[in-house]
């Protein structure tokens, strides 16, 4: 197979890298791990970190919507639950009896005191432990997704009906959080989070560390996702998306597959939520309801619903656009995002990932190869080609 070419070592390494889509992953890693931290102020970097937490949700949507064909309009629920679990732990740490001594009941979160609660509700107590919190972050949303998934998919409810029901779940949770002010912090959410086990998360150095932790987790999820999609399971998911009945007739349990991918998407979203709380320092119902959930769908759609890396770019671009336009032209933002929804559906349903990147890659490859030092034969060996051509046998 591997005939050695006349190209030099860097050229060969380059060719190796250009096989498949590894190069895109590398580019994203360079962008997130090196370019952003090197060029942006800590404030802007924290903003990028915040956008990246949304891309967890978009990644989950690529798995369950792009590959599994299940559109959930309630992913904000899982993002929010993960975020609230983290926020509960941090809030309890910030509400030690000493710093809340002016309250009528010291030692409970301030919003509980304002709402005349005199003791911590029972379900808050386990969140005093970090270990419990870290387990709860993926588990609570995962469990909810499992219940919804089993109830719906076992009865073969899918497509549009599933989307409407998940949307209602998002509405319910956000109304519930806003209504139960004394237990959840209400519409303001859980704010004034200060330290994680005594480590001040508001400092610049902490923000940098959290950014890298977030990026690390994100790449972890991307790699696991790639592995998953490359496996037989990924093929089954796609088959299910395209011809569900045939997969069922082939003897596979479609309901189980769907539930699995929905739960996976929920758990991935919850990681994003927890990292959001840590980086931004609060959690509120405005990240739980219908609107944020649909905004995350559009992020996945802009990036390309069938592309994991696209999801990351999509979340970055949509949320950067949101910040940019709602700061400068608040009137325009809704027009823009609305048109984006329509355009992404009508004009380019595969999003950014649907553009012809392979052609760009080939062209870049040929340019770079011309620049690299060569040895042996003349330049005909470095003819740009997607498959290794290797016309002249090199040595031995």
């Amino acid at each position, binding site marked *: 197979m591997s005939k050695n070419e006349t190209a030099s070592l860097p050229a060969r390494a380059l060719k190796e890298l250009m096989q498949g889509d590894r190069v895109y992953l590398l580019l994203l890693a360079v962008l997130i791990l090196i370019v952003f931290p090197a060029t942006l102020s800590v404030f802007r970097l924290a903003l990028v970190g915040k956008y990246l937490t949304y891309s967890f949700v978009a990644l989950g949507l690529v798995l369950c919507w792009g590959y599994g064909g299940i559109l959930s309009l309630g992913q904000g629920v899982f993002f929010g639950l993960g975020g609230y679990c983290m926020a509960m732990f941090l809030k309890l740490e910030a509400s030690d009896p000493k710093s809340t001594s002016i309250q009528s009941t010291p030692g409970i979160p301030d919003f509980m005191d304002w709402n005349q609660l005199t003791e911590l509700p029972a379900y808050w107590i386990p969140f005093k432990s970090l270990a419990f919190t870290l387990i709860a972050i993926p588990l609570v949303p995962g469990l909810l997704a499992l219940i919804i998934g089993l109830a719906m998919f076992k009865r073969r409810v899918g497509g*549009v009906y599933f989307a409407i029901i998940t949307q*209602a*779940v998002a509405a319910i949770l956000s109304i519930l959080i806003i*209504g139960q002010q004394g237990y959840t912090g209400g519409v303001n959410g859980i704010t004034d989070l200060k330290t994680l086990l005594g480590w001040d998360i508001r400092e610049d150095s902490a923000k940098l560390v959290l950014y890298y932790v977030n990026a690390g987790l994100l790449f972890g999820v991307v790699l696991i996702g790639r592995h998953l999609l490359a496996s037989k399971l990924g093929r089954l998911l796609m088959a299910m998306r395209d011809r569900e009945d045939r997969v069922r007739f082939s003897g596979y349990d479609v309901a189980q597959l769907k539930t699995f991918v929905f739960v996976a998407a929920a758990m991935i979203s919850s990681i994003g939520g927890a990292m959001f709380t840590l980086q931004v320092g609060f959690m509120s119902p405005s990240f739980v309801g219908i609107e944020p959930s649909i905004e995350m769908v559009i992020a996945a759609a802009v990036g390309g619903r069938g592309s994991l890396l696209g999801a990351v770019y999509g979340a970055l671009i949509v949320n950067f656009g949101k910040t940019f336009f709602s700061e400068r032209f608040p009137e325009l933002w*809704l*027009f823009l995002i*609305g048109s984006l*929804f329509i355009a992404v559906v009508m004009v380019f349903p595969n999003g950014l990932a649907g553009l012809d990147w392979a052609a760009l890659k080939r062209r870049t490859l040929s340019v770079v190869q011309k620049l690299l030092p060569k040895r042996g034969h003349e330049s005909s060996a470095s003819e740009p080609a997607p498959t290794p051509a290797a016309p002249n046998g090199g040595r031995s």
Partner: protein
Amino acid sequence: MDSVSDLGAIFVMQGFNGLSNFCVLLLMALGLAIIFGQMGVINMAHGEFLTIGAYTTFLLSELAHSVGASWLIESYFVIAIVIAFFVAAAVGFLVEYLLIRHLYARPLDTLLATWGLSLILQQAFRSTFGAREVSATLPEWLMGSVQPTPTIDIPINGLVVMGLTAVLTSAVFFALLRSRWGVRVRATTQNRVMSSATGINTRRVDRITFSLGCGLAGIAGAAFTTIGSTGPTAGSLYIVDTFLTVVFGGAQSLVGAIASAFSIAQTQATMEFFMSGSTAKVLTLLAVITILMLRPQGLFATRVRG
């Protein structure tokens, strides 16, 4: 004895409040039952057609008062209902032509595109009418209330809205189940290719059906002005409820839409009396979802979904 009759009166009035809400919800659900149930199109911008109807009514009210003729001030509301229907239907026609018709094969994508449309429309309302809520000035004869017993107060506008809803519901039933148009719509729903082969212009059926559904939402908007004030997001507050109503009733069934709009609106109104509005809402939605999980085809399913 007195307190018992007081409690009874409160129940009647609370029940009546629920009825006004039921009427708006039912008008919305009828429109959506036609669009979603018959055509299978997910129109997330359906709430915005209610807003269009409501703003049309508001504009006509302003116009009537600026002209100042007393007969116009007295009767503008009736005219507004008709005009709201046609304005909403015309916008619906345009939306179908520009957007929906390209997406019939991709229901989930329609959902995203119409959500985008609803964002655009909301911002358009905000830019045109401002973010503040406006209300149409109701004519005199709509204001007062009737008192069947000394303790019970029933507002007249509620009665009018109920009458309107009853008339429209019968009209939709008649149109869908008895008219030539209804036959074409139902034929197209059941088998598009076959209908086309028998000479039905299915594209035209789609266009008219969609416009009609939007027009009904426009009338719901006119009715809405009697129970609340209109803001840019007035309609979007109804969208989740409306979709749940249609799904809960059984997407294909008009009787189901009526039954489920009634039960959802009444459950909520009754519970609001005992607990906070948000808890009532949460419990109502939870109940609907739980029932849907147990009976996903809805209350009145006409056929099993595959």
